């Protein structure tokens, strides 16, 4: 009976710890952002495109517009690139691939989703960026490169989730559509997609969340320069990259501004994920 109580107590404490960590994250981020929030407010901060470090290394004028824009634009490009391809893979894996291809291709996709993001960054930096530059001109490290590589990075993730969602379509449902004389395309369009709709949308939003918060792949590729991207092929910066690049040598106010940026990133991703989880991927058990 002692064991009983001990076991329950321990697990209860652990559950509390999870909550505690989350709240601690918010509190700590907020705590360190306080001076930046005090100095710049909210609207001014997110509409300000300057990021000027003060002379003494402590003060300065910091605004989040460019990194916020960079984050959203790179993620948008990633989505535009990834969605059709990921859907194609998912459809291929659920309804088209012959049995002997399904397993190996499926496993390959899942394995690729597990490759650390820094690897994608390396590849983009040394191979894909220069290639894009030779096609479209501009810079090798640019919004486009970052977006497309980000897209390539989330393809396996999105495809695997979408395929899982599509696989939940009961095979009898699919068979019964076939037995009404439907073609493969009609089965996909009328049965599989509607059935897996929520799961697919959820997988897209989750992938978006990933892209928004991605650090390493983008850090290599977006250029890391603090300026408006005037074309797809010009360099800019995103929130995670801003933090990664400048954290080491930041002074007090800049540090606080970066915590502020982290807080904003956290809130953005919190809402994205919440929408995906609660509206589209609600677990029913």
């Amino acid at each position, binding site marked *: 009976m002692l064991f009983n109580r001990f076991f329950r107590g321990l697990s209860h404490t652990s*559950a509390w710890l*999870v*909550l505690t960590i989350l709240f601690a994250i918010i509190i700590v981020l907020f705590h360190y952002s306080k001076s930046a929030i005090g100095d710049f407010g909210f609207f001014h901060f997110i509409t300000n495109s300057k990021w000027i470090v003060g002379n003494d290394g402590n003060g300065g004028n910091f605004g989040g517009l460019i990194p916020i824009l960079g984050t959203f634009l790179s993620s948008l490009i990633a989505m535009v690139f990834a969605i059709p391809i990921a859907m194609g893979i998912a459809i291929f894996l659920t309804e088209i691939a012959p049995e002997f291809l399904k397993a190996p291709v499926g496993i390959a996709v899942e394995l690729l989703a597990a490759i650390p993001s820094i690897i994608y960054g390396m590849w983009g930096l040394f191979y894909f960026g220069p290639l894009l530059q030779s096609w479209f001109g501009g810079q090798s490290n640019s919004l486009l490169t970052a977006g497309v590589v980000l897209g390539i990075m989330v393809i396996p993730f999105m495809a695997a989730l979408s395929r899982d969602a599509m696989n939940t379509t009961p095979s009898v449902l699919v068979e019964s559509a076939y037995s009404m004389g439907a073609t493969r395309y009609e089965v996909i369009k009328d049965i599989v997609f509607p059935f897996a709709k929520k799961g697919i949308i959820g997988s897209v939003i989750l992938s978006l969340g990933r892209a928004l918060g991605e650090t390493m792949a983008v850090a290599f590729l977006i250029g890391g320069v603090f300026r408006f991207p005037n074309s797809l092929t010009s360099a800019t910066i995103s929130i995670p990259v801003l933090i990664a690049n400048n954290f080491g040598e930041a002074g007090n106010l800049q540090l606080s501004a970066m*915590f502020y940026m982290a807080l904003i990133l956290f809130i953005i991703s919190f809402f994205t994920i919440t929408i995906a989880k609660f509206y589209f991927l609600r677990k029913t058990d």
Partner: protein
Amino acid sequence: MNRLLLNKIVITLSTLAALIGISFLLWILITLSIRGYHSIDWHIFTTDLVNNGLRNVIIGQFILAGIATVIGVPVGMMAGIYLREYGINSKFSMIVRNLSDVMMSAPSIVIGIFVYGIFVVPFGGFNGWAGVIALAILMIPIVVSTTDSMLSLVPQELREAGIALGASKAQVIYKIVLSAAKIGLITGVLLAFARVIGETAPLLFTSANNNFFSFGLSNQYPSLTVSIYHLALFPSQTSQNLAWAGSAILTLLVLFINLITRFIFKPRKQK
């Protein structure tokens, strides 16, 4: 016939999409193999970063991820057990479960900066412990989630059967439920380990990096991923080669763990 033509077109297009997607991914893997093949030699495993080797950072990465696992897995698993076994339908569990899910997808750089705030600033500098904590925090929600879902696969009747035989709740969980979910749980832990061992961003300003063969957790700590980041951006052929070697090793490692979970602990699924 129109329908049939449309059918053919769609099939072709999605096959094509699949081909494009997969060829990108193959491209990455092939690049990695070639560059890795050319850069990896025995020397890398026997010398440290200062001498253009990767010994200390590889070991460092393992230690960081290993200790993070030792901390994160028990906490995550016990929390998962609470959610599924004790508070299954309580408000508290619902909140914890959902927030943990959100935390799982939180940007890892945010976790890093958070740990910086509480474990680096107060202790006056980058240290290994901070890195460990950051990785553990990353890991906990993953373990919570897999534990939760693996336990949910254990049929309720099995628990009731244990109770009906006169076992107490803790006995049922400990002896029956956990061992029924054993394979799933081990898989989950391995995958979580594979996930954190490839993390870079949370380590950037927690454990930072260390070029030397030194593993005191209260100092800056060597890690493979952070080293790859720095090496890759360093404009020298040697360090870039070293970055490729590290990347290949890291990828190999992660893929290896994933493959292990897939084939050795192949979950018995019935169709």
